[in-house]
Structure formats: C-alpha cells, structure tokens
C-alpha cells in the first residue's frame, strides 16, 4: 500500500542518514505482533515501540498478524532471519497456552527470549447483587453449586480459561465456561446478564467496579492487585502456586547473536521503566516486570509445563 510504502521509505531514508558509527541497528526493525490492531497487546507494543525507536535511533515498522490465538503470527515470525531486525512482541498465551490445544509448528526453542515487559493478573467478577463478596466466600459459593454458574472467558483453552480452571480444579469447582472473542465481548455479555461471571483482563472491567456495578472477588495473581480493592490474591486463599498471569515479552527468532540480545534487553528495560510507560501501563492495570534472556526462557518453560498439566486434566 502506498501509505505504508511511503512510511517505510521515509524511515529508511532517515535511518540511512544516521551516522554509521553504531553497527546495530542501522536500518528499520520489523516488529511482528501476533494480534490485530487495536487490542491490548497491540497498544502496549506500539507505545513501547515509540520509546524504543528513540533509544535505538532507528525506526520500527509494525506488522500485525492476527488469528489462531496468536499462533498464525508466531508461526510466520519463526521463519524470520535472526539478524536483530525482526522482533516479536507477544503476550504469553501464543507461546505457553496455544501449543497445548493447537498443533503448532513452533515450540519454545523456535525463539530467542529477549526480555519480558509488563504483566497483569486476570480477574473473576460478578454483578453487585451477587450473594457473596469476598474471595473465600465466592469459591465456597461456586463449590456448593456445581454447574450452576457460567463464566465468560477469552476463548477455549486460552490463558484466561486455564487461569480460572487451575483454581477451580484445586477447589473441585464445576463452573460452565462460555468462550467469547475477547474481553470486550465477555464484558458485554456480563453486563447484559447473559453470563454470571466475568473472566478477563482487569482494565476492561475496572470502570464498572469503580461505578459500583460489578465487584471482583478474585485476581489470578498470588499477590493482591492495588487497583482492585477487595479482590483476594491467590496467596490469601492458600493457592499461591496456582498463579497465572497475563504478561508480555519481546522475542527474536532462534539463534540470535547474544551481544545483540543483551543490548536489546537493556534498552527494553530502560524503555519499560520510563515514567511515561509506567504511567501508561498503570491505566491498563499493568505493572512493569523485566525478565531478561535465559531467565525469561526459564519462565516460559515453567509456565508451559504448569499449563500442560491443567489442559491435560481438562481433556483439551
């Protein structure tokens, strides 16, 4: 498309005009996002890309490749050259959850972990007139009424559903999962009373908690979340090991130069902790959490293993 061509042309020209003292990066970096434009991952990545452009002194072209819960973008990206000019901004689900339910061509080894950026918990919320309010009572109510309540989630076998099912399995709870296309659609059906429980990201439901229309008994992080007063973290419920988070990271294709990885990880660390980015994250209920290189690889692997256990139990 002409617009994009001009845009890339201009930025390429700008990159060429830059002095040649730094070897990397000396041209436009392409950042693949495995989700459509306008969603949470997209917005976070685009905002971060602005800061990275400044710090790296090069431009970043964004390519949205949605579909398949992120697996389409991940499969396409794994074939990129590991020269540092192809990066992948994703949330954890395409790497740790999707492979549990889909027969995907990639594995964790197909990527070079660079750095995680931010994280947030999922939450389960009910309408203000729901009989119970606290996290412990909420789980007891669900346990006492097997099959009575429906909860909306982001998609079958998605991280949100697995996050909820990990808790439910530990407590022997049977709730009916209703998969929707995303947190917005879940919210619509929750507000309209079509499902009893909202399951999804905090930022989407937050305005309705503030207005008193909804209350959230539980978050899926071990610790409490300051933005959601009254919601129990899992540690308080004795389920600290069932923590499941939504988090975001930047990766490269397999076999990247370790020096480039380290340099990028440090720049990402700086950008994520830039006050403007921290403030932006706060509006979405997210906090910065930078885990770099091999430590990030280990985090991905342990989450992958934990979720494999749940999805096996669910028969997915």
């Amino acid at each position, binding site marked *: 498309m002409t617009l994009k061509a001009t845009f890339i042309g201009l930025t390429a020209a700008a990159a060429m005009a830059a002095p040649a003292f730094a070897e990397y990066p000396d041209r436009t970096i392409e950042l693949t996002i495995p989700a459509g434009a306008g969603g949470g991952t997209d917005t976070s990545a685009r905002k971060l890309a602005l800061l990275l452009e400044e710090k790296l002194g090069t431009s970043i072209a964004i390519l949205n490749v949605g579909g398949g819960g992120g697996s389409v973008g991940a499969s396409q990206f794994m074939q990129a050259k590991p020269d540092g000019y192809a990066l992948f901004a994703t949330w954890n689900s395409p790497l740790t959850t999707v492979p549990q339910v889909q027969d995907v061509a990639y594995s964790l080894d197909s990527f070079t972990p660079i750095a995680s950026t931010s994280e947030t918990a999922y939450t389960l919320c009910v309408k203000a007139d729901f009989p119970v309010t606290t996290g412990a009572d909420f789980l007891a109510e669900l346990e006492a009424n097997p099959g009575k309540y429906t909860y909306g989630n982001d998609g079958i076998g998605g991280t949100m559903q697995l996050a909820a099912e990990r808790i439910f399995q530990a407590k022997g709870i049977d709730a009916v999962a209703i998969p929707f296309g995303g947190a*917005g659609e879940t919210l619509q059906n929750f507000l309209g009373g079509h499902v009893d429980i909202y399951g999804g990201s905090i930022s989407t439901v937050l305005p309705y908690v*503030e207005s008193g229309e909804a209350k959230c008994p539980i978050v899926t992080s071990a610790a409490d979340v300051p933005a959601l007063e009254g919601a129990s973290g899992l540690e308080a419920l004795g389920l600290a090991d069932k923590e499941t988070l939504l988090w975001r990271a930047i990766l490269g294709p397999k076999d990247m130069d370790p020096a480039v990885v380290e340099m990028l990880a440090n720049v990402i660390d700086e950008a994520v902790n830039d006050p403007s980015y921290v403030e932006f994250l706060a509006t979405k209920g997210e906090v910065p959490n930078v885990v770099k290189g091999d430590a990030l690889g280990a985090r991905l692997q342990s989450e992958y293993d934990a979720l494999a256990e749940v999805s096996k139990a669910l028969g997915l």
Partner: protein
Amino acid sequence: MEFYTNALSHVLSFGPLTAMIGATLLGVFIGALPGLNPVMAIALLLPLTYSMDPLVALAMVAGIYNGSMYGGAIPAILLRIPGTPASIATTFDGFPMADRGEASKALKIACWSSAIGGIASAIALMTMGPMLARVTLFFGPAEYFWIAIFGMASVAVMVGSDPVKGIMAAVLGLLIGTIGIDNLSGQARFTFGQTWLLGGLDLIVVLVGLYALPPVLQLAEKCDLKGLSAAQLKLADVPFKKGEIRGLIPTWLRASGIGIGVGILPGAGGNIAAFLSYNAAKNASDDPSSFGKGNPQGVAAAECGNNADNAASMIPALALGIPGNVVAALVLSALTIHGLQPGPQLFHQNPTLVGGFMMEMLITSVLIFALGGAVATRVFAQFQRLPGVLLVPTILILMCVGVYVINGRAIDLWVMLAAGFAGYFLEKVNFPLAPVILGMILGPMAEQSVRRALLISRGDMTELVTRPISAVLAAVTVLVIVWPLVKMVRRRRKPAEQ
C-alpha cells in the same frame, strides 16, 4: 448543549479542521481503490498521531472512516468493483446506472446518501449514545444468532431470478466461513495442516479476488486499445425527474435507521447494514423487479446504510468501552495511549475530547457533500477513459499491493487469484456473488452464537425463542422470508381477476 458548543470551538481550530478535510479526501481515495481499506489506513496512521493533539488524531480517523465508506461506491458504480466490503450492495444498481450513461447521477446519489447516512448516525451518537449503548446489552448470543439468520434470510430474497443458485452460492460462503480455528472447541477445521489457514480466509482477500477480478477479466476480454475521448465519456448529467429526489427520502430514513441499528451492535458491520438497507428498500418498493437493473433507490439505500453504520459503531466503544469493530478498537487504543480510560466515565472524564470526536464524525459526513461529488466525477470517473490495456494492469497491481499488505504474506495473493477465477467462473454460469460474501460473514456469527446460547442454556433449544428480543427477531425473520412470497402471490392473482 454546552458540552457540544465547547467541543465545537476546539474542533473548528486549524489543526483538526485541516486534518478532517485532508483525511476525508484521503478516505475517499482509500475506499475507491480496491484492496485498500479504512482499517488498514487507520492502523497505519494512528501510531504516527500518538504524539499529536488527540483531537487531530481523531479527526483523521473520522475523515478516513467516513470518506472511505463513500469512496467504496465510486469503483462499485463505475467498474462494478466494490472498493470496500460495504459497497457490494452498491454495485447491484450503481453499475447498471453507469452502464446506461447515468454514472454521474449514480455518483451524486451515492454521495448525498453517504453524507445523509453519516449525518444521521452522528446525530444519533451525539444525542442518544449512552442510552443506545445500554440497549445493546440486551443482545446476548441467542439474539446474535437471530440477527445472523435474519441477514441470511435477506440473502434468499436478493438472489434474484434463480433462488437455487443463490442458495448454492450462500452455502459456498458458509463453507468458506468454517475454515480455521473453531473458537468454541479450539479445534482447527479444514486447515489441512496449513498454519496460514488457522485464522480462516481473510474476508478482504476473498472479496477483492471474487469481486474485482471478474470485472477486470471482462475488461481484458474487450481488448480495448484506445480508451474514450472526453466527449465519449458518458458523464452527461441525466437530470433528476420531478419528485425523484423527494422519492428518495423514505429510503434515506429507512436506511439510516437500519444502519444505526446494525452499527450499535458490536460485531455486526457496514456490510450487513448495506445489505439489509438494500433489501428493505426492495421489499418496500412497488416495483421490486426494477432493483438490480439500475434503480437509484438501490444505490441510495446501500450507501446511506453503510455510512449510517459508522458513527453508531462508536456508541458501544465510547459509552461502554466495548469496541464493536476494528476501527472502534483502534479509536479506543488511541484514547488509552492518550491516557484516557474508555468506559462509562469517559464522557465526564474528558468531555472536550469525546464531544469533539462526535462533532468530527458529523463534520466529516457533511464534508462528503462538498468533497465527494467533485472528487468522484472530476477525478475518478476519468479513469473510465483509460484504455483497457492500461486500466487492467493498473487495477491488478493495486489489488495485489492492497491484498499483500493486509497480512504481509504472499500466500494471500494466491487466495485472491483462486477466488478471482472462482468468481469469474460463477459469473459465467450466472451465480450471484453477494451470497458468498454474506455467507462468509454471517455463517461464523450464526454458528458461534447458537453454540454459545446453547452452552448458556445447558442445551435447552427453547431459550432461542422464549427471550423477548429473540422472539421478536425470530418473528421478523419469518416475515422477511414470507413477505415476498405473499407479494408475489398477490401480484399473480391480480391479473387473473381482471
């Protein structure tokens, strides 16, 4: 009222105003070029605006969105190639009008209808936004199922002379719609191990192939080496007959209402709005058989309907924080980047910005009156003069570029080519193409909704018709199917009585 006068003073300053004019023009071009679409343009432009005044950024969104919905009508009328999915219905009567030398008139009607639809929609957004947003919450999976079925029932009515072929075309669309990951079970269907099929076939890719390639091939068949001289270009103004414009008013009112109604429902879109408006106009007409043969009412209904969807689709996004389509999601993401939290508090949190954006949706609709007509007839209509040997490759290149940048992968070009040959073949054997696209859009919506509804009701089918809104929708669907039959029977009986 103060809310809007205050916002208006901000909107009418230099930055937003130039952005609106520029973006509306740009939008018309984007809409007019097959393959390029507003979603792509807005997704590309929006990040560039993160550091700008948000009202300027939103002015650009409003301009591109409204401009492109009209722009799609230009190639639909002139070449029978819909510029966007929402302008398929415009080809039905727009192209026959152009074919008999009324291109200029058809473009005028499209321009006015787009502007009127956009204005009506913006007014609905400004006056009833939060209230209408609450209404959308009553629509659960069962209701969405009926909306999809209602849409499909309308297909049955519009297939023309040969219903069997129409239904076969719709089934083809339904089948294409099943490709990809099933959202309710997580299973991949009909992907044959191909990763690129997991997301299903992209609507725009199929649309460009199916709809743009056959007319291009037909142009190529003509082997036209010379093109038209200025005098041969049949743009002569066919004057409006007395009362003809007044006759369009009921169509505009109906189409605006339908467009707004479809627009406020998250997940439905301009293409459905245009089809339903077209269909309603046909059903209301005294002479339904004149539709599809160049009836100005058809152009008016389709174009008014697809623009009326625009501002209305922002209602659930702005008032509830629930984006109904990608453009609304992009607007929400722009607001978040500027530090605003979408949701019920947005109107109080930043009235200048929200009010301003609504004013911009209104003003850019008005701008279509001024800019649309001139651009369409003075610039785009001249393309018709290009000799076929130039026009054919030009359109082909535009199509390929447009399709490639959607996902940045070459395989989509092959999908487009395959869809194009399928479309060419289907046209040769007189299959209507519109039901294919509608099947692709509505099939997944119907399937997912009914399965969700049954999950919620624990498998109880009666809940599909016992909820108040779903019962009404079911009844209306039956009516849409039966009404044309009743009319037909009555018409046949009349001559018999004489």
